[in-house]
Structures are given as structure tokens and as C-alpha cells.
């Protein structure tokens, strides 16, 4: 026991990594490469249990076989492989809010334990490797499938001008808008209202932004989540929900690559940041807002989900907001007005 408690973060990382290799001997490993922003990530799964859960959100980002990865993530679960990680190398009171583990975030090693989904996440900056372990893939909640690995991407990109952010994004290849706000502010409704327009969809909940040399957003997850009560406003989407039998307790989970792959965008330059607000009135309007208002809609909620690396993330989000105009989007109930309003804004920006 003493030996375990004395284990340093890199050694513990190696010990869990070794268990992955044992798991990958027991069940055939699967290797998949995905394009995350402008770089390639290799996911190595021990068996297909986690693969089948976590990759549907990323299928539109498949990278060529043999492309050189800048991050490798090793994923396994105990139920499907029979292999468990070593016991925690920390005391039971080391778990902090947002899953951070005291003493196991030292600038090289990053560690979080997602309670609720019971997933251990680790990243080793020196080796550019990450670990994802679940006790049982059947315990992974539906929402994890909508934004797999977002925390690992956040850690990995800490020293790069790239940042996963809690925002939606819609646009045209030449430019679009980022839509930021707390859960329930209208991000998903706004983004899904644009599916019936010429605007493309880059995400409704988590997207990847680049802050330099110019603001740009990359589509990250080909998913959308919608409150079941809101499904009535999008009658065409009900049949597409991947969890249609559980809408009494889950948001509707939509994989756009399964029913609207032509609407998915790999990304576009960011021309404006919108802060949506549901008004209950029919009409949609834009009101000019300050950079600080945009930042307040984007940064605290992003940091609320993503433990660690907060200073860098905060600075990157501020740099982004300083480079684009911010508008409050008073989203009306006549959904067709929402894409028209965004397209009008983009055309006005283009003509400037």
C-alpha cells in the first residue's frame, strides 16, 4: 500500500498504460485516426466496446491511414476486457471539483476522474499520450458520446493557439459565427434552426477554435443534443434521435453524419461571436454587445466543464473575443428568421 501511495504521477501513468497493453492482448485492438483541427490524433481501443460508443461523433473527421499522429490516446474498459487499472495512487480525499485529482496535475501529467461517468482521464505532455479508462462501457452516459475526449483535447492543446470551447458554430465556407452561452441559452436551437438554410453546421455544444493568426473554428463533433420538449419545434429530427426510447430522461442525441452529412462543416473563419437569448417573441434581432459580454458567455462555462490548464484557456478565449465583433442574438420563435438574421450579418461583414 505504501508503495502505491508513493507512486509519482508519471509512474502511475505508465502503470495504467501497461494495463492497456494487457487489455489489448486479450481483445483485438482497433486503431483509428481522426483530424482534430489541423492535426491528427490516433485512438487505440482495446476492443470495440468503447470504440463503438465514442467514435460515431467523430466519423466525419477520419484521417488517412498512416498519417502521423501528434497525440495517441489509449482507451479501455474493464467490463469488456477483464483488465483493471491499478488502484488509485492517491487518497480518497484527493478528488476535487470538476474531477481534478490533487497532486496528479503537475504540468507534465494531467489527471481527472469524471464522477457520474466513472471515467479516468490522464495526459502525459512529455510523451504526447493520453489514457481513457472506464470501469464499464455500459455506464458511460449518453452525453459523453456527444463530446468524447474533450478534456483530453483541452489538456493536449494547452500550449497551442487552439482551444475547445463551449459554443455552437454555423457558417459558410468563407466565414461564420460562434454562438456562446450557458446550457439552455439557445445554442442548440439556433444551430439546428440553420439546418434548413445554406448555413453549415460545425457544432452545437463543443467546437475547437483557433485564435491565431486569425480566428477560426473547426468542427469537432458531428452531434447535437436537444431538450425533448424542444423536439416539437423540429419535427423532422425526432426520428433521427439515437436515443429515441430514452427521451423521458435524456436529451435527444443526434448524429448529423447519419442523417445530414452534407450539412457538416470542417470549419470556417469566425466573423462574429453571438450570445443567444430566447425571448419568446416571434422575431429574431441582433444587438451589438461588448467584448466582455461575449467573454462572459464563453469563458466561465467552458472552464466549468474543463479542469486544468485554465489560465491558458482563459487567455486564448480572451484573445479570440478581442478579434471579432460580439452581438446579442435575441432568438425568436419563428425559427426561419434565425438563419436569415445570421446570413444578413455575415453578408454585411463581408461587404465591409
Amino acid at each position, binding site marked *: 500500500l505504501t508503495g502505491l501511495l508513493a507512486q509519482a504521477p508519471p509512474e502511475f501513468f505508465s502503470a495504467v498504460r501497461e494495463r492497456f497493453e494487457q487489455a489489448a492482448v486479450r481483445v483485438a485492438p482497433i486503431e483509428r485516426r481522426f483530424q482534430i483541427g489541423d492535426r491528427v490524433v490516433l485512438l487505440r481501443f482495446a476492443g470495440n466496446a468503447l470504440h463503438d460508443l465514442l467514435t460515431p461523433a467523430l466519423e466525419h473527421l477520419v484521417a488517412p491511414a498512416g498519417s502521423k499522429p501528434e497525440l495517441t490516446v489509449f482507451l479501455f474498459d474493464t467490463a469488456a476486457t477483464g483488465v483493471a487499472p491499478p*488502484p488509485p495512487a492517491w487518497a480518497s480525499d484527493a478528488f476535487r*471539483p470538476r474531477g481534478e485529482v490533487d497532486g496528479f496535475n503537475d504540468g507534465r501529467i494531467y489527471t481527472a476522474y469524471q464522477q*457520474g461517468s466513472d471515467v479516468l482521464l490522464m495526459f502525459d505532455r512529455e510523451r504526447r499520450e493520453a489514457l481513457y479508462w472506464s470501469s464499464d462501457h455500459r*455506464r458511460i452516459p449518453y452525453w459523453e458520446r456527444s463530446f468524447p475526449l474533450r478534456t483530453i483535447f483541452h489538456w493536449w492543446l494547452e500550449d497551442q493557439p487552439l482551444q475547445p470551447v463551449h459554443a455552437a458554430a454555423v457558417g459558410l465556407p468563407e466565414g461564420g459565427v460562434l454562438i456562446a452561452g450557458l446550457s439552455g441559452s439557445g445554442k442548440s436551437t439556433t444551430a439546428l434552426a440553420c439546418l434548413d438554410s445554406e448555413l453549415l453546421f460545425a457544432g452545437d455544444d463543443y467546437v475547437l477554435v483557433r485564435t491565431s493568426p486569425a480566428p477560426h473554428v473547426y468542427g469537432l463533433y458531428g452531434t447535437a443534443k436537444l431538450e425533448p420538449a424542444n423536439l416539437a419545434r423540429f419535427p423532422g429530427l425526432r426520428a433521427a434521435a439515437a436515443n429515441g426510447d430514452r427521451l423521458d430522461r435524456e436529451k435527444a442525441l443526434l448524429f448529423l453524419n447519419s442523417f445530414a452529412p452534407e450539412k457538416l462543416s470542417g470549419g470556417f473563419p469566425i466573423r462574429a461571436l453571438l450570445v443567444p437569448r430566447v425571448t419568446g417573441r416571434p422575431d429574431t434581432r441582433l444587438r451589438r454587445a461588448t467584448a*466582455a459580454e461575449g*467573454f*462572459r458567455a464563453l*469563458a*466561465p462555462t467552458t472552464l466549468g466543464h474543463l479542469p486544468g490548464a485554465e489560465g491558458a484557456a482563459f487567455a486564448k478565449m480572451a484573445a479570440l473575443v478581442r478579434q471579432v465583433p460580439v452581438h446579442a442574438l435575441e432568438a425568436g420563435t419563428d425559427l426561419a428568421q434565425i438563419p436569415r438574421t445570421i446570413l444578413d450579418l455575415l453578408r454585411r461583414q463581408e461587404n465591409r
Partner: protein
Amino acid sequence: LSGSGRYRVASAKIVWQCFEDELVAINLESGKYYSVNSTGSTIWRLMEAGWSPEAAAARLLDGVPSEEGGQQVLAFWARLIEEGLVSPDPAPSAECREDVPAGSPWTPPSIAVFSDMQDLFLLDPIHDVDEAGWPSRPAEGN
């Protein structure tokens, strides 16, 4: 609050950014975040640069003798301490820095507190652990 004391941002868990007319700070321990107006933002930056509350008030109110303004600076500073954003600096540098922008004309400093993110920062109690010691509990919605 010591009018002649020196202060600093309370911990590395307080992160903040200045915009043209507002400073936004977040306390990563509590999940509370804050909007500080233009004068408050200048006070914050003076505090960071090693100015005491009294020295900061004198600079902000330069040429406009105002007892009320001075009181407002001290009350605002006390509020920053009360919110856990600012604490006494145990090892202040010998000199305060002069490179703080003047900021916009005087308006009373103010701070707005936002608590709508706090549930994301609350520590979930650990109900059960498995045989190896890993926490384990029923999944919940998000």
C-alpha cells in the same frame, strides 16, 4: 482593510482578463465569476502593480478632491477581499509599478457577481468505491 497595505490576487485559482471597459474574473474554486466596471478594473490593475488602497485612490482622484470617491475606492477594495479575490501581499516588492493605464474618467467602482455556474464547480460527494478504490456511482444526466 489596511489603507496603506499592499495586496495581490488571492491565488492562482483566480483568473482574470481586462477588456476595454470591463474586467472579468473567475474564482475556479467556487465557480463564481465577476464583472468589474472600468474604474474597478483600473483599481484592480493598480493593486496588481503594488499600489495601496490609499495610493490608488489618490491617483484615481487626482485633481478631484473627493472624500466620497476615496471611500468608494476603499469600500470596493474591501469587497474584493470579502469575495476572496484579493488578499494581503506577504512579500510586496519595494516599488509599485507606474505602467498602469489611466483608464476612463471616474465613475464609482462596481462589481457584479454571477453564480449561475457554481453547480459545475461543486464537489460531488463520493458515495461508493469499488474493491480497488475507484469511485463508482449511478450515472446522471448532463
